[in-house]
């Protein structure tokens, strides 16, 4: 059988359903279309995002897993590595060469043996430990560096918002 994006995505979905990583749920929005997924990511404990449940969308290219998917949070986010429109900017979502943000050379990159699970785990780490060198959101990066208290307040407000608690 020739390699196919659909077969691989179905296998990954099955794997994530049988063995879900802690704090992460992900799968196709609609089983008619395996190329668009929704994910729910729980904010990591002991961080300013603790307790939040953040929804995101993953869109896979037709040549997945040769090329990586794109990922975008669909809730309000304020984070150095997330654009204001919610797009996630981390190294594992890029192959080397596709490298406008100048990621560190040690950073994890996309390759066909990576997986949705690896991406989502990287996103959880990113929430816990922002990389303030990559300025997807320059204001957030600056505040993270210079005014952590204010940053934490905004994060807590976003957490409450994702839970539907009045802010």
């Amino acid at each position, binding site marked *: *059988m*020739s390699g196919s994006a659909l077969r691989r995505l179905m296998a990954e979905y099955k794997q994530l359903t049988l063995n879900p990583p802690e704090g992460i749920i992900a799968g196709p929005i609609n089983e008619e279309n395996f190329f668009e997924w929704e994910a729910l990511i729980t904010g990591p404990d002991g961080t300013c995002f603790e307790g939040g449940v953040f929804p995101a969308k993953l869109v896979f290219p037709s*040549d997945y*897993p*040769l090329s990586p998917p794109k990922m975008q949070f669909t809730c309000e986010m304020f984070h150095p590595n997330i*654009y204001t429109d919610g797009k996630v900017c981390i190294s594992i979502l890029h192959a080397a*060469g596709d490298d406008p943000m100048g990621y560190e050379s040690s950073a994890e990159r996309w*390759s066909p043996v990576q*997986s949705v699970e690896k991406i989502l785990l990287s996103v959880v780490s990113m929430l816990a430990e922002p990389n303030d060198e990559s300025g997807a959101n320059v204001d957030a990066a600056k505040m993270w560096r210079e005014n952590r208290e204010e940053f934490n307040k905004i994060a807590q407000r976003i957490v409450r918002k994702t839970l539907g608690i009045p802010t």
Partner: protein
Amino acid sequence: MGDSGGEFESGKNQDDLIMQRQREIEKEINESIMLVGDKESLSTLEAEYLSDEIYKLKVKDLATKYKNIRRTRPDGNCFFRAFAYAYFESLLDHKEDYNSFYNIAVESKKKLISLGFPQFTLEDFHDTFMEVLAIAGKEEPNAHDELHAAFNNQGYSNYVVVYLRLLASGQLQQDADFYQHFIEGDRTITEFCHQEVEPMFRESDHIHIIALSTALNVGVRVRYLDRGESTEAIAHDFPEGTQPTIHLLYRPSHYDILYPI
């Protein structure tokens, strides 16, 4: 128009625009050139360099040693694709080599898993690789056509490339102490593999060729057609000192397959 240079505001996704353009360029290339072309006479190469004295001399010399060329798509995967095609093609005529190579290929999966590659995502690439390899073991007269068709089907062809990339990466990581000396900058071998070997569309260098030819025990002779001083396209054999099974033509940033006289 303010001086803030609105285009570069955070949140505007410049990288998406750049990559979109890059993908458009790739698509244009893809649509114009087959993944692996038909066998052509070496005279088609001579015709490319009629007005270039340095290249003309070297191609003339090449023509005394090689009778055909088979071109591959210049998409950054050309070394791996050319290697796989040329070697599988040679196996069609050498069934004794086929059997021993088949065993090496079966065993290679265990080796990669023991080196830490994730079995879950590795399996698909290995299975597809074995499936294409099996065509090279067929006795039917149309086996060559079937092989050619598989190499021009993205689903098969690209998965074979991925698997060879993983094998090259595995070899580099297994002998990291040795290969570390050839890496520029302060990257570790593992970082180099994650960034330059495993991702699709990354171009190959000497180190990729040494690693892959060593991992599979397949000798490769590369003929370098460049602006260097000599009057012939200089040959390098990988691994050094081995009898080459396959011959490749290198022109800056690209590999095609050569067929000796």
